[in-house]
């Protein structure tokens, strides 16, 4: 589904991704771990199409299509979803209104009829249960005054509404207490099918107790320097990243 080859990206003059490779197939869950500042959010942003980053080399194919050619909205319509590490507050735009626009824009791009008010509401109700988010929150301005946990839940709720093929969850676990973490993780698990895939960016093993990855990758200094099975996460939790850093510099 997703094939990243030798991806290099800058912000300003600073190179952040320095030749990154990753293959993701339908049905898989990949965890990307790594110390702060190693480029995890940069990777997520580049995949979602944030224009602040300049891609200087490499390629990204999504179902064979050149993803880097597409605008952020086209990528979303192709089925890419980014759960932001820091979801932004948008005063004056209600979550409901925003999501209705988003869902119908995506449907339009896929040649589907727009959902009418009733259909949309039914779908909302169903997905709200999934992440235990309440109606009152959704009628407020998007993320405005939401707690950290509410913002993260809202990200997963949006994911549920949009049903992406590839979801990239950037530190969705940070700022969540253990109950919220469980709810969010269960939500993500319920959304899994054999046709979609999830990339979970985290630096805590704890989320991976709930969302079990097929592969764990370590991103360090703009590259994936190590990949392994889910046990790698436990090893990282136990030993930290120093041994990886040593391996890289060796």
């Amino acid at each position, binding site marked *: 589904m997703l094939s990243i080859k030798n991806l290099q990206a800058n912000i300003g003059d600073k190179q952040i991704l320095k030749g990154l490779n990753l293959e993701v197939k339908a049905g898989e869950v990949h965890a990307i771990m790594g110390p702060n500042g190693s480029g995890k959010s940069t990777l997520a942003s580049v995949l979602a199409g944030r224009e602040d980053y300049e891609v200087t080399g490499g390629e990204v194919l999504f179902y064979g299509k050149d993803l880097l050619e597409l605008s952020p*909205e086209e990528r979303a319509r192709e089925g890419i979803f980014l759960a932001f590490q820091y979801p932004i507050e948008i005063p*004056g735009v209600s979550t409901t209104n925003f*999501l209705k626009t988003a869902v119908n824009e*995506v449907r339009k791009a896929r040649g589907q009829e727009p959902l009418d008010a009733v259909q949309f509401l039914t779908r909302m109700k169903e997905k709200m249960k999934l992440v235990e988010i309440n109606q009152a929150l959704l009628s407020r301005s998007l993320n405005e005054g939401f707690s950290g946990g509410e913002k993260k839940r809202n990200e997963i709720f949006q994911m549920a509404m949009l049903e992406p093929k590839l979801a990239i969850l950037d530190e969705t676990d940070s700022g969540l207490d253990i109950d919220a973490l469980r709810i969010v993780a269960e939500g993500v698990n319920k959304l899994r099918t054999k046709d979609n895939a999830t990339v979970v960016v985290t630096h805590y093993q704890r989320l991976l107790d709930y969302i079990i990855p097929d592969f764990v990758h370590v991103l360090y200094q703009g590259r994936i320097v190590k990949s392994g099975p889910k046990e790698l996460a436990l090893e990282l939790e136990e030993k930290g990243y120093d041994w990886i850093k040593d391996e890289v510099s060796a």
Partner: protein
Amino acid sequence: MNETTTYTTDLKSRLLSSFSQFEKELNGSISSPIHTLRKDALEQFDRLGFPTTKHEEWKYTDIKGLLKQDFDFAPTNNGVSTSVYDVQDLLIPDAEANILIFVNGIYQVGLSKIVSPSQDIIIKDFTEAYTTHASVIDSYFAKFAAYNTNAFVALNTAFAQKGSFIYVPNNKIVEKPVIIYHIADTSVGKPVSMPRNLLVTGKNSQASVVEVYLTKGEGTSFANTVTEIVIQENASLEHIKIQNEGSEAYNIGTTQVYQVRDSKFFSVTISLNGAIVRNDLNIVLDDQNCEANLYGLYMPTGKTHIDNHSLVDHAKPHSYSNELYKGILDGKSTGVFNGKIFVRQDAQKTNAFQSNRNILLSKEASMNTKPQLEIFADDVKCSHGATTGQLDNDMLFYLRSRGISLEKAKALLMHAFAADVVNQIKIEPVRHYIENAITSRLTE
């Protein structure tokens, strides 16, 4: 343009010389007290002349474009029958309201519709009102709008004859709003109108008045308006001014508000289009416990210039004013916000707040903002702030990352930005009209 314009003398001379014709049309009412004021105002207009950008209050609004127009200045009712005007599709849909329609300054009795009972509110064409309510008019007319300093007010006062007279007696709560349409029909030339409105709300009364300026056709027009508003003890008035004219419309107007004890004024000014739009909103809070709310939204595009000048004069203690003006500027448009707040020495315990926020959608659009606070009392709470920026890129990215197109994302953010002002409009059909106008603008 054709060569016939060469004979044209300048606009000021033409206006001055048309006064005697205007007097003839008044048919003998030239001995009335208001006519003395008209003549005085004409002299003031002659003395003041049209302002240039050297004038402090007109520094950023250059009216040369207005002055060189070859307007059809005919203060005559040229007898066009009202049925000629098909204006229905221009009006605010579904509004259950008292409706006054003026076309090129002339009251269209056949198109207008008064639904509120006359014991609750008197709604009349100004000319007619002067035959029935002369004493009210004589006590307020030109008492508040300064025709010795503002040339446009002087000009309007000199030719004051047509417009609306609205009088709410004491203790009357008027449920249905009054909507006054001023439509410039440019299919018959380049019309000039000088609407003169007087709104007086009696003690403990409540009313809503909407002024709407529209154009029929695409041509040039000029409206020079003065609306004088008197809000008596414990009365409350909602006043909405909407300018949604054509791109060649010149619209210059002063709204002069006088408030006394425990009164409330609530104003929303929405300026969507025109060649030059200039709004002066002057409020005098001349007693204790008055409240004035001033909201404004302007959305110029193309070469439109929109200038909002406001003055809130806190003359007495314990009053409150709150002002929020927002602008979305596109194309090569220009905007001006000049907000004065005076807090007189007497006006202790004043609360006065002002905010002006702007979004520039294009590199060629510009905004000039000048807050002016002059505070002579020491125990007051005042604040002001102004920002001019672009749409937030992070917000745009967030919306786009959910599949929303750049255009729709911008529209969502602009709607949200404008909503703080638009949502202040309590009359639902009017609010919907504005929302739709904004939507169609944003999806153009």
